């Protein structure tokens, strides 16, 4: 069993351990294959430029969302649960971008019989630019139960 995080050990202001991934066609093609997401703007530079991205093809928002899930799950471990994720796709990500999921704990509460941690989250590119601001709610174990 993997209990990484207990409710009592988390404080408001704590940072989510950063989770990074350099993305290119190797990541995008695999994601397209499992999600049946074969869209020209994510596969072909010419199509990407026609889509008003000068650098060509660009990454999927859904894959960035998956990276948020991965970062949260990596922190809390297998026994805890992601309860909610909200985000906005404010910017696209380019080929070879290094994306880093970041987060800060904003609140804690016990509700619906669960010990919950709230975070502000985002996915930054290698320039530190936000691409996907949002929030998350996690259900984690308590040392008292």
């Amino acid at each position, binding site marked *: *069993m*993997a209990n990484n995080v207990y409710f009592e050990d988390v404080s408001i202001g704590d940072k989510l351990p950063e989770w990074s991934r350099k993305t290119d066609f*190797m*990541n995008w093609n*695999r*994601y397209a*294959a*499992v*999600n*049946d*997401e074969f869209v020209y703007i994510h596969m072909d530079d010419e199509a990407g430029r026609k889509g008003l991205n000068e650098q060509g093809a660009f990454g999927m*928002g*859904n*894959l960035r*969302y*998956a*990276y948020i*899930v*991965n970062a949260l*799950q*990596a922190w809390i471990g*297998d*026994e805890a*649960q*992601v*309860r*909610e*994720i*909200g*985000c*906005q*796709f404010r910017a696209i990500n380019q080929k070879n971008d290094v994306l880093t999921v970041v987060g800060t704990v904003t609140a804690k509460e016990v509700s619906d019989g669960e010990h919950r941690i709230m975070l502000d989250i985002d996915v930054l590119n290698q320039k530190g630019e936000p691409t996907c601001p*949002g929030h998350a709610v996690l259900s984690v174990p308590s040392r008292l139960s």
Partner: protein
Amino acid sequence: MSDQAEPETLVTEDMILRQGRWGSERDSPPVSESDIRKWAIAVYWPETPPPVFWDAVYAATTRWGTIIAPPDFNPFAWPIVTEKPKVATKAASSGEVKARKLRGMNGGQVDTYGVPMRPGDVITARNRLRDWDERQTRLGHTLFTYSETEWHNQQGELVKRRVSTAILY
């Protein structure tokens, strides 16, 4: 009133009729261990994904007792027939608004998760136009529509609820 004048509302009669009404349901194919494994490999590439997504022996030691899918797993990928569920999500379909072509943007989403998906699950999806909001923004008169999708497993347990925001102006 000139052609450039903005309408008083972007809400259509069609939207009002459909508000809150669930559309047709559709079922996923049964979720397989292989589907989950491949999904996990793709979203964790190039690292090895956590064993709870692919190692049945390890997964049996967790609270879940079995392999589970990552929360973002999509059991509806690769349909034999691509069919969109019947539900109102487009604003401009009738009346005065139809005369003006609207632009749209993805305004984001909020996903709430219930029980995890497991091998053998058949997921049933339904969706509806939940509500909307209109206001002046830097884009002009702007309509925000909120569409809601629910996934339940074969036991009727909630797996996921997504509220998607579409921005039309």
